[in-house]
């Protein structure tokens, strides 16, 4: 198949009426790549203070059927989750990802039955931590890693995400910067904007197509980074 590669590249260059790019041009393109030039960022998401950022995030997220509960500190998250599940008559058994931010929460203050690790089919409720959230469109950004299995974001009927207020950025480019600061590109970056949905039968919108039917955010005012 190496011939296919050479053929395709040769045809592209034929079409462009040139040979392979010279070193100078290649260097210029490499520099351009490394400079991560931003295109236009919507005004609505720019230069917001944290309060305005969170207000925009919440408004955009709630528009697409995400529910949000606000608590003051991380320690209050387990009780908030218990309350949410009880109010909706959902099972009081949750599968929590092994994320350290979640592991140190006082789960024993609640009556929840806690599983930790990789979600299986049949796990009704999943709890995940978040890498960042993007106010611009009310979107959560979750990344895969040893402590954050991707399937936990999709298999449970109810997905609960614990989000620190300091994890909310204004726009996508800021989220990319944070990801690059954090190190190598993870295997999977999931941007999640509301619960799963489809309009494929008779153009009628229904939630819970293949992924979660409910997406609930516990927004922690003094988030993970701010924690003493």
């Amino acid at each position, binding site marked *: 198949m190496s011939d296919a590669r050479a053929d395709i590249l040769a045809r*592209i260059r034929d079409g462009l009426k040139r040979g392979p790019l010279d070193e100078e041009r290649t260097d210029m393109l490499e520099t351009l790549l490394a400079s991560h030039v931003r295109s236009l960022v*919507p005004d609505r998401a720019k230069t917001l203070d944290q309060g305005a950022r969170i207000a925009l995030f919440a408004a955009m997220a709630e528009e697409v059927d995400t529910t949000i509960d606000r608590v003051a500190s991380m320690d209050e998250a387990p009780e908030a989750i218990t309350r949410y599940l009880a109010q909706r008559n959902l099972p009081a058994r949750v599968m929590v990802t092994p994320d350290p931010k979640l592991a140190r929460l006082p789960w024993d203050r609640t009556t929840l039955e806690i599983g930790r690790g990789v979600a299986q089919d049949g796990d009704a409720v999943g709890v995940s931590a978040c890498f960042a959230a993007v106010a611009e469109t009310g979107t959560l950004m979750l990344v895969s890693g040893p402590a954050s299995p991707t399937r936990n974001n*999709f298999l449970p009927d109810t997905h609960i995400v614990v989000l620190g207020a300091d994890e909310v950025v204004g726009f996508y480019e800021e989220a990319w910067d944070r990801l690059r600061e954090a190190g190598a590109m993870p295997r999977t970056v999931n941007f999640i*904007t509301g619960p799963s949905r489809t309009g494929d039968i008779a153009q009628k919108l229904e939630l819970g*197509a293949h992924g979660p039917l409910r997406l609930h955010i516990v927004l922690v005012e003094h988030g993970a980074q701010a924690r003493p």
Partner: protein
Amino acid sequence: MHPTSRAFPENAHRALGDAILQQSLGIMMRQGFAVRRAKVVARLPEFEALREEARALKDHVLEHLDFYLETFERNVKARGGLVHWCRTAEEARATVLEICRAAGARTVTKGKTMIGEEIAINDHLEANGIKPVETDLGEYIIQIRREPPSHIVAPAVHLAKEQVAESFRRTHRHLDPARPLDEPRQMLDEARAILRQKFLAAEVGITGANILVAETGSSIIVTNEGNGDLTQTLPKVHIVLASIEKVVPTLEDATLLLRLLARSATGQEFSTYTTVSTGPRRPGDPDGPNDYHVVLVDNGRSALMGSEMQDMLRCIRCAACLNHCPVYGAVGGHAYGWVYPGPMGAVLTPTLLGIGEAAHLPNASTLCGKCESVCPVKIPLPRLMRHWRERAFEQDITPRATRWGLSAWAYLAERPPLYRLVSATAARVLGWLGRGHGRFRTLPLAGGWTSVRDMPAPEGRSFMSLWTERRR
């Protein structure tokens, strides 16, 4: 699938008389994607500027496509993935089959992929004893009905819920025949339960790619159901099927396209799930595929480079041009006879199948220009359709009567005094003949026009004579 684009007039005629199709199209055109798009665009003052930036980005990529594809390949490899270059649909099918066989696959789940439809991967896998299961709900419905998609974003948009219910009863025979299937919710729950087991059982997951990112070697998919994510996360092998023009330089560039894609496609601010995948699972990762393959498909695209058709390679498959097209809205996607319908299909299908096969499609347009005005990457679709009309004329593909008519008109149009003389005479004669009723029920050579409306008889003086008088 076997193309029926040659039969567009017959297909369109049948579609116009199909009551269920007309009802579905009516809902879509009056309350659907276009209406929602207008709302989200109105909320984003930067939308027009973003379109221009996206056009420029895509043009920059095409001018350096070799560089960005090589960079993409290098970065996929650096993260433990493999890239397979395929010149033709046949090579791509063989490559996918080989990967599936090596994985010992019996069932393959699939996210929605238009390039997969283009290369007819499902038929090939099935013919070789591997069961492909479409997991996007719309694709699943048309797969069990053995139909092609009628829309590139909403493949089952032509169907009523009763047709879906009937197909589910026929296919899901292990379920109680007396179960209620009256509402979309019930059908969705049934499909969700059935497909969940397929996700868990499949050895290979195939997805398309909305975008490839050169700097990281990532592929990006955009879905609302989450089916693409279960497809690529649960099986041990993930195959990404992508055509070569999908590559962009950086994550920032991908963001530019993502700001336009969902808004243009479904009128959402952002799709529910946008997923960036980079290589196979890492050491310590508790899930994700062990193998990550990107099958890079050319299938005629490199031949468009440097041609008048190069602009078409900017297309991001959002379907805004379908959603706003009066012809698509009247006849639906199946009439176009192949994978890509609407204005983008009218331009793309002749490039992929040949103008001889698809000569009707560029004529299935009033050239009203709505498609170009909503295209997020500003493809001059009417100009490209006109281009195909010219090629068809030059190659003697256009029917003889049309050619004769066009030649006669061209002869006159090139000779203004003669044109004015002939048109003034014709107007006077028609005016005299129609002086009684003021209109014609039938006219020779214009039966197609008068069969559904009357032709008004010309009256008064011609525009040219009035114009000449006023200028004095």
